[in-house]
Structures are given as structure tokens and as C-alpha cells.
């Protein structure tokens, strides 16, 4: 019982702070790579606190409901994952969190917001099959869909049997983190273009809710990277964190070196090349495995 409470605390209270620090580190390292000084590491937290005290302007009331649903389902995703539940169900909950955000962008009469939502829908279409294949691969490798079985002491690390799936996940993660070249829907950095479309008509505290949900998502994405080397002992935990740090640096380099791809190119790239790569990995597992 107390273990559940600790896990819940981590998922609900600690995770957004860690996510915010990761996002802040992201901006700092990017700045240093570009020869700048960059904002303080806690800058995302200052941003959210500032947004909370701004005037709560809005366009219609249903977009507020969608913002809250986005946050609630993102929190639910993390809670389910940390409680060690079924990873496929967790994935669907996460997909619905993204759908809530998309709907929030669509429910206002703003052309930029709608276009941003449509592009985000295409991005969801691009990366969702990859994530499902990843979970299938985890099942084939571990024999169970439960996240608790992946971190159980004595389990096999996933990276050994799922290397191609890991690379595919890196691509899907780049889309979810809104990094170039996959940032046509909602760029992490290019605030001043139409591409910030989905959150365009949100302001003040409602934007703060979406930012907090983004922190949960960042924590979730890096937690899944950690999962690829997760069986519980100190050595493995260290390797897992190094893996997460490596993924972090990889995404920053990716972001700073590549130009943005058009939406349909991204969908084609993900469905043909990355999907094929992940499917190859799991077919090889099917042939080797016990199923």
C-alpha cells in the first residue's frame, strides 16, 4: 500500500519537476551548442508560474475542458506506467491525451489552430503504429505486457533483443518531443510560425496546463528510454540513465542539424522506413521466440 503511494507521488508530483528540468536542460544545451549562454535550467518552471498569473483569456469553454482532459490523461498515462500496468493500454491512454490536445485546437474558429491540429493528427498517425509495434516487441521479448515485468529483477534488458525497435522509438520520440526534422505540427523552438498552431488560442493558465502536461510527457518519453535497460539493480539503473542521457543528446543534435520535413514526407518516412525497421525486428523475434 505504501509502495503504491510512493509510486503515485513520483508519478504525480515528482515527474513534472523532473520533466521541467529536462526541458530546461534541453534549452541550455541547445543554447551552448549554438554559441549562446541560454536560459537558466529552471526556466520552464518560471514560464509555467508566469502563465498561471496571467489573465485567463479564452475563446470558448469547451477548449478549456479539452486542456484539462489532456492533462488528466497524460497524468493517467504516467500513473499507469509507474504502477507497472499493461503497456498497450497505457499507450492507448497516451494516444487519447494527444487526441484531446488535437481536439482542443480544432474546436475554435481559428484557421491556424485547425491547421496545426490537422498536422498533429498526421503526426499521431505517423508514430502510433511504431509505438504499438514497440509494445508488441516488448511482449515478444519478455512474455508479458505488464511494465512491472520489464523492470523486475532478473528480467532480460530489452535493448538486447529490440535494437531496431529502439531506433524506431528514437524517431517516434523525436516527433513527440517536437524536434526537427519532425516538427511540422508544433515546433519546440519556432514559436513564431503557424506551426505553434495547436496551442495558438490558449493563453495564461490554460496554456500553463498544457505546458505542465508537456512536462509529464517528457518524463514519460525518457522513462520509456530507461525501460530499454531497466531490470532492477544499481548497475542496470546506471546504464538506463546513461541511455536516457544519450537519447537526450541525440535529440538535441538531431534538432539542431536537420531542417523541417513536410507533413506527408514524415508520414511516408515513418510508415515505410521506420515501420519496416521495427517490423523486421519483431518478425525476427517471432521466428526466434516461443510464440
Amino acid at each position, binding site marked *: 500500500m505504501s509502495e503504491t503511494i510512493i509510486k503515485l507521488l513520483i508519478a504525480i508530483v515528482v515527474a513534472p519537476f523532473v520533466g521541467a528540468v529536462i526541458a530546461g536542460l534541453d534549452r541550455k544545451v541547445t543554447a551552448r551548442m549554438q554559441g549562446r549562454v541560454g536560459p537558466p535550467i529552471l526556466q520552464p518552471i518560471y514560464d509555467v508560474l508566469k502563465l498561471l498569473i496571467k489573465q*485567463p*483569456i479564452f475563446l470558448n469553454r469547451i477548449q*478549456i*475542458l479539452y486542456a*484539462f482532459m489532456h492533462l488528466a490523461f497524460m*497524468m493517467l498515462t504516467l500513473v499507469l506506467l509507474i504502477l507497472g500496468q499493461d503497456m498497450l493500454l497505457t499507450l492507448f491512454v497516451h494516444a487519447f491525451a494527444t487526441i484531446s490536445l488535437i481536439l482542443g485546437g*480544432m*474546436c475554435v474558429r481559428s484557421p491556424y489552430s485547425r*491547421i496545426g491540429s490537422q498536422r498533429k493528427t498526421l503526426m499521431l498517425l505517423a508514430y502510433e503504429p511504431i509505438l504499438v509495434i514497440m509494445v508488441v516487441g516488448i511482449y515478444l521479448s519478455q512474455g508479458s505486457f505488464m511494465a512491472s515485468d520489464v523492470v523486475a529483477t532478473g528480467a532480460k534488458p530489452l535493448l538486447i533483443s529490440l535494437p531496431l525497435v529502439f531506433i524506431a522509438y528514437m524517431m517516434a520520440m523525436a516527433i513527440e518531443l517536437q524536434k526537427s526534422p519532425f516538427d511540422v505540427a508544433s515546433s519546440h523552438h519556432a514559436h513564431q510560425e503557424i506551426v505553434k498552431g495547436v496551442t495558438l488560442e490558449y493563453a495564461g493558465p490554460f496554456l500553463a496546463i498544457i505546458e505542465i502536461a508537456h512536462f509529464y510527457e517528457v518524463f514519460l518519453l525518457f522513462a520509456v528510454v530507461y525501460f530499454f535497460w531497466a531490470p532492477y539493480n544499481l548497475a542496470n539503473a546506471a546504464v538506463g540513465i546513461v541511455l536516457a542521457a544519450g537519447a537526450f543528446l541525440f535529440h538535441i543534435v538531431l534538432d539542431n542539424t536537420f531542417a523541417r520535413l513536410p507533413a506527408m514526407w514524415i508520414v511516408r518516412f515513418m510508415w515505410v522506413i521506420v515501420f519496416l525497421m521495427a517490423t523486421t525486428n519483431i518478425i525476427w523475434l517471432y521466428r526466434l521466440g516461443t510464440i
Partner: protein
Amino acid sequence: MNDLNTLALLGVIAGPVIFAAAIYFTKHTKLRNILVLAAALLTSSLGIFIAASPSADIYPGNWALYAGAGLEIAMTLAVLAIAYNIRSWAVGLFGTIQLVLVVISEFMHNESSLGPAFVVDDLSRIMVAIVSVVGSLILVYSIGYMKEHEHHAPAAARSTNTFMFFLVGFIGAMNGLVLANDMKWLGCFFEATTICSFVLIGHDRTREATKNAARAILINSFGGVALTIGAFLALLKGSTQYSGILYHADIIAFAFIALAGLVKSAQMPFQSWLLGAMVAPTPVSALLHSATMVNIGVYLVLRAAPAFAGTKLMYFIAIIGAFSFAATSALAIAQSNGKKVLAYSTIGNLGLIFTCAGIDSPLGYSAAIMLLCFHAVSKGLLFLCMGTIEQKIGSRDIEDMGSLLREMPLTTVITLIGMASMLVPPFGMLLSKWLAIEAAISSPIVLLLVVIGSALTVLFWAKWIGRITTVSYHPWYTIERISITKQSVLAILAAIVVIAGLGAILLYRDLFVDIAIRAYQGTYISQSDLKLFEAAGKIPYWPFMAFIGLALVAGILAYFTVNASNVRSPFLCGENVPGSTKTYEFRSAKDSSQLAWSSSLYLRHIFEESKTTMWANLIAAVIILSMFAAIGVL
């Protein structure tokens, strides 16, 4: 106890037919409406009674077998009459084949059969509950709907009395079909539903309606032929009943019955009849073409699934189901006609049920039944909402449904509930999709098709939900005025969807898992299947409820505490026209006012309907032929 059951059975099958006959001959509209209400009440109460009572096998006696044969011959003669009416040689051919086979089997029929003519077990109880409850609600809805429809209907349309006769009678036929075990009764009710569908689709008697009705009966009577061939082949091996086919594991007879099921459930390549059937009035679409009749195919396959576990036939059924799911999800994206989107979605979900049934494990079976129940209710609700919206705004196009939240707030909220039930965890449909993917893990091809299909479904639901919730700020909404029957039915169905959806996890753990265990008793189940099945039954319920509750409470609080002075216009680069009634009006060249408009995503350059349908039909036909080749028929 047995007598009570038999009486209830008789009531739920013959009752609607008797009411239908009475309705046909009434002269007054009010009397007709009362009769429809009474039929609805009777059917729903009897249906719930049968669903709640324990399983039973009904042996009505020899008269029932002769009556069944006689009725079946009568139905095939009716099909031939229709074939003459619409001058279709193909339907005439199909009807003749059926007549010949039925007459021959009458003479081959030797001793009295071994098993019960009607069976009330888990699966039929669920189906009776769905048909009776959802069907009765749709009957009540159709009272209000047809009253409005009569104003706009073309002059050549059939009378509402005829409409109600076939609609109410259909419910009796449907109940009979899911309770029947004897192949004669099965065939009789199968043909009866085909005939009802033909008449109801062609109700408006426009050129389009008659053409689509003819196509429906053409394809469905092909299914009837397949069913009759299957029954005949079974008779050659000595079984006159469906349970006999399962007992003898007569795979070739079952293959034909499965083909009949695939045709009835409008799977690829037979889907065109269901798409054409969307010209019918909405109660027809809701009742026949989403909630009940199209479930006949999955019902027939589900009933047989445990007996044929592990065979190649079931594997092929899973593949054709998964392929239909993927193909129709892709085709639905390119549609802007709301009813066609719902039709494609229905075919896709039925394909998913076939997949779950074809996977043939307890997990798949429980997923299939859960999908069946939740889909019938949700889709029925969505079709009824679609009909209400169409009658109010006069259009079926998704692009015309902006600002629906302001024009029809009650209907829009109910439509949102219906659409949310298709997408949101932990409602039943999403749970079933999750279970389906878990069950499909053992076959990679099926898995890939299901994954592709489920990724594509999000596109058209998100687009549609986004369009109907688009609205500018209004401090209050006026509830729209629609007839009391329509409003109450929508509200009741929405309540059922919400309650069943919130309790989906509990329903799964406590009801569907047990049904699957009972169905698979005695069949070999692999270790990994068993492990998956047990794990799926253990999902925690409280996190979902906690967070959905939090979101709703926060949203509702925000709804009531916002200040109207904080409302702003959308960002149009500062060119908003001040004081305009439309917030999306902007000043363009030469200071003229324009309205900002962005259409939704249709991806027509990728999923263009005729080309995609052609390729999908080709691949599906190849799969079906391979199915027959694999069991040695071809």
C-alpha cells in the same frame, strides 16, 4: 420453468410479428404509434427476461420443424417474387437454387432431429438483449422520425404503415434468428431479414433507393445461397442443426455458413450493399445496418468459434476481418458524408469482431463479445444522432456541421458521448480494441493489419469530433426543440452508453471473462494465451475513474467560473473585423470582409474511394478464395 421460457421465446419472436400485422392494417396514426410503443415495451421486457433467465434448450416438438421448413420455402418464394419484381435474373437464380436445395432437403429429412430447435445460451441471451432493448428504443425513435420524414419524403414513397410493419416484424425475425438452432429456422429468419432489408432500403422509392435495394438483395441472397448450401452439406453428413455441425466439426459446411456470415456483415469484398443501404431512413440504418442485422454474421461465426479452434479456416476469417478493418478505416478518412463514415466504421468494427473470433482463444472470444455489445449500442446511438442532425440542418456532410453545438446543444452533446465512447479509454470500444491487439499477438499478419486499421480510425473520428464542437463563446445555450420520442430515446441510449462505458472494465472482468471460459471449456488453450487472458482480467479500475473524474470536475468548474469579459477573438493576424457577428471574419484586400475557413483533412489523393475500393476488393476476393482452397474445397 421450461414453459415460461418457451412462452417468452414465442413472445419475443412472434409478438413483434403479430404487432406488425396489426400496425399494417391500422388507419389512424395515433393508434399506430401506440401499437409501436406497445411492441417496443413488450419486446424489451421479454428480451430482458430472457437475458436474465438461465440457459435452456427448447424442444418445441415436431410441428416446429415442419413449420420451419414451410416458412423457409415461403421465404424463398418471396425472394423469387422480388426477383421478378425488380427483374433481376441473378436474384432469381439464387432464389431458385435455394428453393431447390430446401425442397430436396425436405425429402431427405429422415428421423426427428436430435437436438433442440431453439437454444438459449450465453451468446443468444446477449444477442436477444441487444436486439430487444436497442431495437425497441429505435422503434420508439422512429415514431418521431417518420412523422418528420413524411413531410419531406417524395410522393412515390411507401406508406409509413408499411415501414413500421417491416421494421417491427424485423425485430421478431432477428430474435428468431439468434435463438434458432435448427438450420431450417435459421435459413427462414435469414431470408426474412434480407427481405425486410430490401423493402426498408427502398422505402423512399427514388431511383437511388430502388437501385440500392436491388443491390442489397442481390448480395444478401448470395449469402442466403451460401447458407443453404452449408445447411445442405451438413444434412449430407446427418446434422440438421447448427449444434450438430459444431459437434461433428463439419468444416466444409461451416465454411459456407461463414461465407454467408461475411456477406451479411458486409465484409470486404461484399461491402457495397451496406454503403448503398445508407440511403434508407435513419431508423433502418440504426437498426438493421449497425446494431442488429449485420451482427448476424459475427454471431454465426462466434457460435462456432470454440468448436473450430486452431483450424486454418478460422485463421483466414481472422485475416479477412482484419483486412476489412484496415481497408474500411482508410476509406472512411476520405469520406465527407457522415452516414458513409459511420457505415465504413461499422464494417471495420465488424471486421475486428471477426478477427477476434477467428483468433479463437478465450481472450479473443471475450474481446469479440465485448466489441459486439458495445459497438451495437454506440453505433446505434451515433446513427440516431446522425438522423436527428440531418433532419435539423438538412445535410449529411461533415463540413456543414460546424456550430452544431450552438444550434442543437443536446443532440451534439449526446453525439459527443457516442463518439467519445468509440475513442476514450476506458470505454468499451477502446478496451475491446486493446484486447483485440493482445489477442492477435500470435499471428503477425493479423496483428499488423489491426495496428494499421486502429491508427487510421483516429483520423476520421478526431476530424468529426473537432468539427461538431467548433463553436464561439455563448453565455448560454437554448435546448433545441425536437420531438419527445427522439429526445427521450437519445437520452436513454446515451445514458446506457455512459453507464456501460464507465463500467466496461467491471463488465469485462465479471461477465465476459466468465462467458469466454464457459465457451472454451474442454478446448485446448496454450499457456501463453492463458497467461494473457488472466492478466487482461486484472486491470485496475480506480486510476481511470479518478482521473476522468478530475478532468470532468475541473472542466465543469471552469465552465461555470469563467468571466465573459475574458473572451477574445481568434488570431487572424490582427485583421479581425471589430463588432462582427462572426469571430472569424477578417479584412482582406481592398478592405473587403472575408470569412476564414479551413476544411478538414481528407487525404483524397491517397485514399481515393473508387481506386482504393477496387484494390481492396481484389485482395479480399483473393483471401476468400484462398480460404476455400485451404480447407480443400477448391
